[in-house]
């Protein structure tokens, strides 16, 4: 676990530092619209020193890992002024944003996760809730018209780019089409004046299209997996044995085939999560949601190293935790492992 963790931080750091040009260089390349405090060469040099962009790479990496702040205003033991002694992953401090020096990146990420995580969880639960019945039905009714129609629809969904699905949903349900649903942001502009119940309704209405955009591709992938597992299970020996004992078909499907087919889905859930987080960049961009994917993207555009490092690390952590959880859940759910 520790080597993997270290490997993650190394990879994050290497990838982030490989991006050419830092925030200061960006300001000198495009003077208009950039941070005015970075106008002169002297200010840029000071900015680099403050954010350790001119320090040797190993020092930057150690600074990123923590727990000591190695910057000029950091821990006294390393020559800092002592104003801000602790920093880095081990101190759960990712520094402040470059553009808004009073905003700690960790706090902003927490705010952004409040948007991204509910969306990811709801869409994943929805995807599972819909995919399992669809998969079971497609496996038990193979060759029927309904099965073929769903298979076709799922195939198309599986091949659809997420952002394009979002755009099409906006076209159909947004103001230009049927005009049923709002397509931008989390709330209407007048939402602050609404009663709590109405406010929640407003949020729910805004969430329908993003959640659908997140859910549908996952759903397509999952239901095909469920179908594959079910088909395999239905042809296996223990199902034949159950049928031979005279069990009703419903009990065979639900009690024997389905139960065994669900096991691999636990692992799938963990493997979907990185895709869900990566996909959040797209969905949050299409629907202008203030989530973490959007934050990572903005940080990358502004060459804000603190944001880039923090968002990438956090999402890798989440994935790592999900994989561990899935292994654990698998062990609990699978008696062969439990008793083995």
């Amino acid at each position, binding site marked *: 676990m520790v080597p*993997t963790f270290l490997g*993650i931080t190394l*990879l994050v750091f290497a990838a982030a530092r490989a991006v050419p040009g830092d925030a200061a260089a960006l300001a000198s390349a495009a003077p208009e619209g950039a941070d005015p405090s970075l106008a002169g060469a002297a200010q840029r040099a000071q900015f680099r020193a403050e954010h350790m962009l001119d320090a040797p790479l190993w020092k930057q990496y150690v600074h990123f890992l923590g727990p000591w702040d190695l910057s000029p205003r950091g821990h006294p033991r390393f020559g800092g002024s002592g104003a801000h002694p602790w920093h880095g992953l081990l101190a759960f401090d990712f520094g402040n944003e470059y553009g808004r020096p009073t905003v700690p990146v960790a706090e902003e990420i927490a705010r952004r996760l409040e948007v991204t995580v509910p969306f990811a969880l709801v869409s994943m639960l929805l995807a599972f809730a819909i995919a399992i019945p669809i998969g079971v039905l497609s496996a038990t009714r193979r060759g029927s018209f309904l099965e073929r129609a769903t298979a076709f629809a799922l195939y198309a969904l599986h091949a659809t780019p997420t952002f394009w699905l979002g*755009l099409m949903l906006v076209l159909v349900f947004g103001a230009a089409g049927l005009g049923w649903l709002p397509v931008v942001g989390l709330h209407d502009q007048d939402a602050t004046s609404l009663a709590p119940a109405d406010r929640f309704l407003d949020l729910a209405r805004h969430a329908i299209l993003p959640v659908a955009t997140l859910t549908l591709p996952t759903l397509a992938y999952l239901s095909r997996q469920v179908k594959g597992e079910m088909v395999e299970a239905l042809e296996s020996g223990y199902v034949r044995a159950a049928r031979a004992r005279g069990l009703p078909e419903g009990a065979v499907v639900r009690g024997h085939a389905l139960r065994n087919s669900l096991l691999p889905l636990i692992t799938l859930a963990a493997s979907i999560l990185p895709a869900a987080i990566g996909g959040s960049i797209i969905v949050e961009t299409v629907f202008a949601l203030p989530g973490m994917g959007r934050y990572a993207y903005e940080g990358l555009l502004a060459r804000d190293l603190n944001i*880039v490092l923090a968002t*990438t690390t956090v999402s890798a952590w989440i994935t*790592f935790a999900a994989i561990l959880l899935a292994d654990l859940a698998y062990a609990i759910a699978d008696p062969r492992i439990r008793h083995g």
Partner: protein
Amino acid sequence: MADGRVLARVAASIRARPVARAAALLLLFFYSLAVLAPLIANDRPYFVRDASGAGGGRWPLFESLSRLEVLLIVLWFLTLAALLFGRRRWVLAVALLVALVFGAAPGRATLAPSDWKERIAAGEFEAQSAVFPPIAFGFAETNLAESYRPPTWLASAEISDAGAYVRGPRAPVPDPVTGVVPAPSPVPVRAGEPARNSAWRHPLGADSLGRDVLARLLYGARVSLAVGLLSAAALFALGVLVGAAAGYFGGWIDLLLSRGIEVVLCFPAFFLVLLVLASADPRVLPPAVSIAFVIALVGWPSVARLVRAEVLRLRDADFVVAARALGASPLRALVAHVLPNALGPAIVAASFAVGGGALVEAALSYLGFGVQVPIPSWGSLASESHHAGHWWLQLFPGLAILVSVAGYNLVGEAVREALDPRLAGRREGAR
């Protein structure tokens, strides 16, 4: 399961399934369109006769083709011929080469807008003799008066002589305060182009600069199709290399490589792609190629895991032990005996990665990290305007992505049926 037989099994599997066969043919058609794009959509005529009447003429379109373009077209016909005459062993190699050249090709300066239409209009050449391609627009040819013109077979696309839209949401209306009707600008129809209101003028509409969307779709197909194939090939090579080394040599090599696989698997691949892509230099590698390699760089672990597991299973198999006993070196045993039998699942995974790569490319282009203007790709075309009124710009490129990715996946399915040992076992069990 030597390589020739793998291809033969895959080909037989595709032929045996009508859907997969249709998908494969459709993909071939898409690739042909992409390769032949400069011959199908171009603002230069195939041929035009001198106005002097001496009988001399020029072949502007063919003169403009770069060597790379010609090579690409020749390679493509070789690939088609190899497919037709059953020399499948060569198909993969040639197709890969085609994809590679694809990645580099669209940036050629020779494809920039030409002045041939002006020269013909100026009377330098006989206008009646000019033979234009079916789509008489270049991919970067602008016509600002036609900015965001809807597909021309729609009633709302009709434009009057003065250049005003006749009906639909874009017809000019008097200003509510001053009562002034905005003056339209007439739409110039250049030599060789369809008439102003012909349904064939812009069958898929025009973009912000009045460029023909159909022409841009054809050229954009190059990037989109090439990235998918190239990324899958690179991902396969990298995954096989790492997976085989980890599985076969074991020990600390395995430990190190497995940890590496685990680390990369933990990453939201898309973040990593964005990060690495921001550091790619378009002067060193054509953007399409660097996108493909970045996708491969984050995608290889899944293939590596499959290969590692297979190699682990096979390395102590009787036939490998026998080869070693006969004096084969470890490397030879690995390459000649273990690997050919271990690649099935990896090939299946790689065949599904083609569509996956195309999807990632589309998403990257949507975020503005894809190929740079004026080179189009399907993803960047679909994201050119987010205005819901410009639906044709969003709909058609997205459909192209959808159809091609679905095609890749259908072919991938046939590959799986042919090569997946799990399925083979089930088929035999069912009998």
